[in-house]
């Protein structure tokens, strides 16, 4: 297994980069970061619609979220492969297709995270800021969002982990990300699929596990900061009891 890593680590890390297109783990991370950054603003918009008092906005955004939640990502990728060139008017790379698909898919999922963050805030926050004369937008911008986003950081990191895992679907439409590179290695070696795919799994595991641990650590920190002293003590006591049994 080590010899496979020794011979192919560059291909798995950057694809054929200096001589060919960029790929491998680096492309996976680029895809994930772009997917997160581009879908985030949209997801805030959808979340505001989902919590909006205007019925039309609420209904249409809810329908959108449920449609995305009910259809597999693979189907979206195929739709993107088919529709994006028609909408743009010329053929696009598989990379662009995957990014577009991820944006659509992730905005819906992220919007649920954002909505949960907004709705978890005590009602008094909105009421107080409205009572102080702030309008809807000002309240959202200066009161709701800063607190909600801060509380949401761990969930957003978990969602980022999901995105990293979802980019592996690019393999289906030949985006040269990590899974695709590993498959190339497998095709070169032919006889040793188990170690190759195990290396692939371990690579994803390391990246995602580190991020998951960060998210959990942050979540604990934020809960500790946000909760009043007594409940904090009680929850710690409960935890130790439950963990210890």
């Amino acid at each position, binding site marked *: 297994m080590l010899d496979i890593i020794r011979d192919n680590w560059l291909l798995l890390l950057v694809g054929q980069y200096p001589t060919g297109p960029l790929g491998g783990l680096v492309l996976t991370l680029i895809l994930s970061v772009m997917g997160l950054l581009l879908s985030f603003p949209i997801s805030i918009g959808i979340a505001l619609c989902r919590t909006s008092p205007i019925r039309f906005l609420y209904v249409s955004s809810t329908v959108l979220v449920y449609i995305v939640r*009910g*259809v597999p990502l*693979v*189907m979206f990728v195929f739709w993107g492969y*088919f529709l994006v060139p028609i909408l743009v008017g010329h053929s696009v790379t598989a990379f662009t297709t995957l990014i577009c698909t991820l944006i659509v898919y992730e905005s819906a999922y992220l919007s649920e995270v954002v909505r949960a963050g907004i709705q978890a805030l005590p009602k008094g926050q909105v009421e107080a800021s409205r009572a102080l004369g702030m309008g809807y937008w000002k309240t959202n911008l200066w009161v709701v969002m800063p607190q909600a986003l801060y509380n949401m950081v761990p969930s957003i990191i978990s969602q980022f982990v999901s995105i990293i895992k979802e980019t592996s679907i690019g*393999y289906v439409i030949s985006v040269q990300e990590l899974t695709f590179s590993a498959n190339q290695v497998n095709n070169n070696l032919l006889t040793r699929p188990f170690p190759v*795919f195990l290396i692939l799994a371990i690579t994803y595991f390391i990246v995602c596990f580190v991020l*998951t641990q960060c998210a959990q650590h942050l979540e604990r920190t934020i809960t500790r900061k946000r909760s009043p002293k007594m409940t904090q003590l009680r929850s710690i006591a409960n935890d130790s009891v439950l963990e210890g049994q």
Partner: protein
Amino acid sequence: MLGRLDFSAIFAGPFAHLLVSGAIKTFELTATSWTLAVGLGVVLAVLRASGFPIATKAVAAFVAYHQNVPMLVQILLWYFGVPTLLPDAAQTWINAHDGELIFASIAVGLCMSAYFSEDLRSGLRSVHHGQQEAARSLGLSFFGTMRYVTLPQAIRNALPTFINHTVLLFKNTSLAMTIGAAEMTYVVREIENETFRTFEAYAVATLFYLAVSLGLMGLGALVEKRIQNQAR
């Protein structure tokens, strides 16, 4: 932009048959992997709650692996990797018995069992500790307590995420197309290749997935309501 839509081309002759067989394969895959996932998920959650250090650590490692590796990679590892480790006789047997379906079920089932066990674990945590203490002091054993007192309450608490993950499992069976299991997505791709009716073919598959997913969500909501009413 799309020309004239012609769904009759998709539903004509052999394609209708293909679509039905694809739908059946998808349901088969969902049923087998769901059964595996729920069964194993309960076992894992109980093991984790048992408090044996080795069991707890092993379950935690199992869950961490399956939650942090893409399901697609797990499916590829099972389908391409694992058979090479098996003896020849086992390999030929599996190839003769729909290997794609078997390995896809195992991969999806194991992966989702990690999610189900985590759902149950947080469900167990939300059951007040006094419940368990009371049951134990009334003379119920560890398993008796689990069976009659803690698990029923835990399942009730875990139901919403449990339903979400069931829908996720159903959707993720579409990943089995990458290893050539002839389920819905795979079949639709075939039809698209032969008829060039891309829009119609994808629309049929999308509506199928959407209908079943929404149906599962609705069913889940119904069950939830029922159980909540019983609890009162």
